[in-house]
C-alpha cells in the first residue's frame, strides 16, 4: 500500500486525540498484518468507498478502549456501558474522516461506524488487499490503526493506460 494512504491516518489520529482528548499519540513503524484476527479486542470500523475502497479499524485492548472512551465522554465508562460503543464509533469516524480529507485527487465516502468487541474477532477483507497495522502508544494504553485500502482509481487508470498501449 502506498505511503500516501498511511501518513494521513497518522496525522489524523494525532489530531483527533490531541483535540478531543488532549492525548498524545506516539506512532511506531507500520507493518503488514499477518492473519485475519484484529490486533486487539475492541474494533471501531469504518468502510471506505469511491475512488478507493476498503476499511479502517481502530483496534484497542478493552482497558485502553474504556480509558479512551471515558476521557472522550467525560464519564466513567466500561465496555458494558450504553455509551461505550458510540464513543469508539465516533472516534474512528473522526480519524477516518480526517484522513480521507488528506487523500490527494481521490474522492472517498465513509460509512457510518460500527463497533465489534470480543477476543480474536475477525474482520473479513479481500484476499489481495493487504492490511497495514500502525501501532500507537498513548497514556491510556496501546492501540492500533488497521488500514485495508484498494486504490480503484489507480487500477482503472493503469488498465486504461495498458489498453491504450495495446
Amino acid at each position, binding site marked *: 500500500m502506498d505511503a500516501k494512504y498511511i501518513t494521513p491516518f497518522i496525522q489524523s489520529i494525532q*489530531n*483527533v486525540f490531541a483535540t478531543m482528548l488532549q492525548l498524545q499519540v506516539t506512532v511506531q513503524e507500520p507493518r503488514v498484518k499477518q492473519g485475519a484476527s484484529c490486533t486487539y479486542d475492541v474494533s471501531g470500523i469504518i468502510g471506505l468507498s469511491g475512488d478507493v475502497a476498503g476499511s479502517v479499524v481502530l483496534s484497542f485492548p478493552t482497558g485502553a478502549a474504556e480509558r479512551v472512551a471515558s476521557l472522550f465522554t467525560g464519564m466513567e465508562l466500561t465496555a458494558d456501558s450504553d455509551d461505550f460503543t*458510540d*464513543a469508539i464509533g465516533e472516534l474512528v*469516524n473522526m480519524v477516518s474522516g480526517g484522513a480521507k*480529507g488528506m487523500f490527494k485527487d481521490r*474522492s472517498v465516502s*465513509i460509512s*457510518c461506524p460500527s463497533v465489534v468487541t470480543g477476543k480474536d474477532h475477525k474482520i473479513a477483507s479481500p484476499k489481495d488487499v493487504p492490511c497495514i497495522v500502525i501501532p500507537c502508544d498513548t497514556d491510556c494504553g496501546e492501540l492500533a490503526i488497521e488500514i485495508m485500502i484498494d486504490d480503484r482509481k489507480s487500477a482503472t487508470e493503469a488498465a486504461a493506460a495498458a489498453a491504450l498501449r495495446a
Partner: protein
Amino acid sequence: MKILLVDDSKTMRNIQKSILTQLGYTQLEEACDGQDALSKVGAFGPELLLVDWNMPNMDGLTFVKEFRKTDKTTPIIMVTTESERSRVVEAIKAGVNNYVVKPFTPDVLSQRITETLGKVAAA
C-alpha cells in the same frame, strides 16, 4: 435561543450540549438523523441547527435540502468530518450557513455560532 443538534453519535451530541450549555444556551433538542430532525423541527421551532453529515436513514446534506424547501432563513451549521473543499461547497450550495470540521475545540464551535448568528442578525 432554541438549538437543534442533529448527529447520530450520542457522544457528539453530549459534547455539543456541554459546550452550548456553558455558552448559556439551554433550550436544546436532539435528533439522531435527518429523518428524526425533520419530524422534530415543526414542534420545536429551532432558531439554529447543528447538523452532522454522515448519518443513517437520512444524511445531513439530504436533511438540509429538505429543510430548506420550507425554511430558507433559520441558520444551519454543518458539524462534520467531511473536510474536502468540494464537500464544503456542496453543503453551502444546499443551504448551510457555516461549517465546523470535526475534531473541533469548544472555542471553534463557539466562534462559528457567534459568527453565524451575527451574520443572520445583520442580514
